[in-house]
């Protein structure tokens, strides 16, 4: 408790007491506040760095390169995801070629744990298990690697993967920015090796019209 001992005034002609120690204020609460302020500033300056999600797009095609054949990818490995308004996520497997009917059916799902994530995990189970086990080994201490080695190893595993899905992400005009961010997030969560954001084409726009609401 703060103790303030007042200096006694010497009375005129009276007995003068020995000079007491001056006013003493107990500094402990002030030091507590200082501690708190410093800790607050130390933590908030560290937090103010915003987090970012890094995405790399392939170079935009030049019109001259259109003649070069794009490498063929197996139809059953392709997973097309179409984002629409109201957090709706549609997907279909394979190619939608109007010359080879019937067109695949659009399946409706959402961003919950049981939605598109289940589909992605189902198609990507081998690679996901591999990466999850590698991360576990690092966490439990069975192998000791630096952060950069971890990142490089995961990149290598993704590059060497031959069975995982190739995801093509498309969004129609009514999709919101958070839908795209959510789907790219799911790519990171499910450890998808290859995905790309592409433009929606007219065939798919028609498919959307007939899709389940």
């Amino acid at each position: 408790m703060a103790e303030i001992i007042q200096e006694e005034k010497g009375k005129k002609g009276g007995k003068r007491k020995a000079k007491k120690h001056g006013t003493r204020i107990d500094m402990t609460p002030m030091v507590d506040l200082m501690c708190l302020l410093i800790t607050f500033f130390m933590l908030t300056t560290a937090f103010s760095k915003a987090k970012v999600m890094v995405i790399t797009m392939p170079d935009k095609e030049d019109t001259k390169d259109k003649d070069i054949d794009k490498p063929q990818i197996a139809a059953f490995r392709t997973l097309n995801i179409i984002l629409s308004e109201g957090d709706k996520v549609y997907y279909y497997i394979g190619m939608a070629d109007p010359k080879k009917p019937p067109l695949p059916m659009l399946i409706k799902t959402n961003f919950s744990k049981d939605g598109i994530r289940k589909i992605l995990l189902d198609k990507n189970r081998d690679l996901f298990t591999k990466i999850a086990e590698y991360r576990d080994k690092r966490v439990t201490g069975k192998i000791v690697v630096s952060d950069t080695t971890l990142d490089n190893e995961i990149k290598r595993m993704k590059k060497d993967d031959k069975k995982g899905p190739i995801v093509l992400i498309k969004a129609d005009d009514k999709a919101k920015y958070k839908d795209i961010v959510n789907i790219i997030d799911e790519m990171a969560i499910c450890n998808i090796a290859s995905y790309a954001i592409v433009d929606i084409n007219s065939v798919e726009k028609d498919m959307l019209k007939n899709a389940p609401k």
Partner: protein
Amino acid sequence: MPKIKPPVRTPHIDMTPMVDLFSVLLIFLLLTASFRPQEAAVITTPQSVSEKTAPDADLMTIFISKDGKVFFNIDNGRDTSTHFRSKLLEKIGEQYKIKFTKVEIAKFGTMSSFGLPIKDLKTWLNTKETKDKDKLQTGIPMDSTDNQLAWWVREARLTNVGAEVAIKGDADTDYKIVKKVMDLLQDNKVNKFNLVTNLQKQEISVKDIPAAAK
């Protein structure tokens, strides 16, 4: 006869030097921390599991608000003597045939994000009232006839070659506007974007894989 000693008082530690040290520490932290300047529009970024942080210098940021207004910001470089902002304003002035005075250029060098057509820049730099300044910020035009954002990005990249690009978009922005910005950036040979997000961790493990269909 031994004198009765007065009861021993608990020692009072003199806290003054400790308070001094704490004050010095606090002042040091206050001075080295830079205040985040007021942004023109309130933007709630979407959430993501990404834990990477944006670079704190050599970064140009494109803000996209919920209603599609675009703002732009660029810093003065890791070493502020490079004065990237002032150089950028001069280059834009040359491009649009507007002469900026030294005072205006210096003022621009200390400010941060902005979003207004280039013809309003002079008036904006000279307005003193914050309210009037904010009214002028209607967003950087991106229409095909006068794509000012393309010019800002192009000149910024020429001024600071190593700058990275961050996109800070509101979660409810229409994706087509963000796509327009990303296409614009790709036209300027920028293929790596940093999308500013809030961190929200997601727990996932091998148990979440659904059972394989028989």
